[in-house]
């Protein structure tokens, strides 16, 4: 099946088995290794990507479902540079081994688009499908709070 989709801002066209998993298409066939496979069964969030701006788990998606979509991974999340969420994760110690980070970054970025001024409880809930074995989560929540503030300032500055 010929699949055409936009990946991190670039158009892609590939001829692939439509029954492949999206995570394998992105990593093995497109060379984009930002999404990670942790569990392969929807429980860890390491494979999360944005499909038309919404969080999806690429381990539970088929290649065919990518056709016609706009896919954003942590690699292309901020456009040319890092996204404020990614900057804040680095600055606030929200990254240790980094395996969960691409999934956390896209999930948090999509959440902040819709909830620009969240409480810590809302952030924890939004990230409840992203498991992290390293940080204990506090610093990830700190980082998302910080990113929210950076994004509000950016928006305010642009007006």
């Amino acid at each position, binding site marked *: *099946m010929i699949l055409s989709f936009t990946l991190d801002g670039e158009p892609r066209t590939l001829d692939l*088995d*439509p*029954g492949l*998993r999206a995570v394998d298409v992105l990593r093995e066939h497109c060379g984009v290794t930002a999404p990670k496979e942790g569990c*392969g*069964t*929807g*429980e860890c*969030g390491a494979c*999360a990507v944005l499909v038309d701006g*919404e*969080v*999806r*788990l690429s*381990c*539970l*998606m*088929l290649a*065919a*479902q990518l056709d016609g979509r706009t896919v954003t991974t942590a690699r292309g999340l901020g456009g040319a540079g890092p996204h404020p969420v990614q900057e804040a994760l680095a600055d606030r110690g929200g990254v240790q081994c980094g395996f969960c980070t691409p999934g956390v970054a896209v*999930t948090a970025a999509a*959440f902040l688009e819709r909830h620009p001024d969240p409480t810590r409880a809302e952030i924890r*809930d*939004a990230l*409840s*499908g*992203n498991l992290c074995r390293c940080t204990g989560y506090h610093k990830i929540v700190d980082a998302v709070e910080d990113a929210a503030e950076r994004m509000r300032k950016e928006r305010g500055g642009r007006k």
Partner: protein
Amino acid sequence: MNVLFPATADAVLEALRAHPDARLMAGGTDLLVRRRAGAVAPGVLVCLERVADLNGVEVLGDAIRIGAATTLTAILENGAIRERLPLLRDAAGAFASPPVRNMATLGGNLCTASPAADTLPPLCVLGAEAEILSSSGTRRMPVADFVTGPGRTALEPGELLGSVTVPVPGGGTIQHFEKVGRRKAMAIAVVSLAALLRVEGGVIAEARLAWGSVGPTVVRCPEAEALLAGRAPTLETFRAAGESVRRAVRPIDDVRASAGYRRRVAANLLLRLAEKAGPAALG
């Protein structure tokens, strides 16, 4: 593998006719996990994600119709459901995690028919009706009859769950959902309770109760419902009804909890209703 993306419910039925061995896939959060485990190996998948007329929430007077391919996120965020069916909203809020909710659908949850399916107890007490589509016509039945056992539904080959229509309970009805899991997010229910209580003149006029994860499918307890009717919604009343609940449920021991624990929690979840219904009875 061949994956088809029909755009209408009619086109889905047509695809099922053309490919009798095809499997339906909505969000894929059950099907693709089962495929990975080697439990299913479909040659043709009919994917519902782009079927417009199976997706969405519609208010129809005193009822709310939810398309089978509507995601749990859409249910959680819908204004009419939040206001009029908080029981279903709360079940959607306790479901898996935000990314899974973005993919998982109501229809997929009903058709999987797991004993732990979180939307089933609410839909049963609300008296929801399933609409089943096929090329020979449409039939309807209560959701409680649609699920015939663990992993089993009333669907015949070539049929499709089209939507679920949920009657909105009248004013003064207390809607309650609680799920106990091993952790807050991403946890399959150890026990869940959906309850609908109509309180009039300080007493319970009608109670409808349904438990998840304490039997092969949803467990109702007519004896407890009858015990509650006509009584004041006090802690004592709910404690007395709990006795019959302990007898009615048929829980199993599994990796998540023991049968004994489930039995006790199933009864104790009723006590929370006193907190909710007590003040309503006074006010």
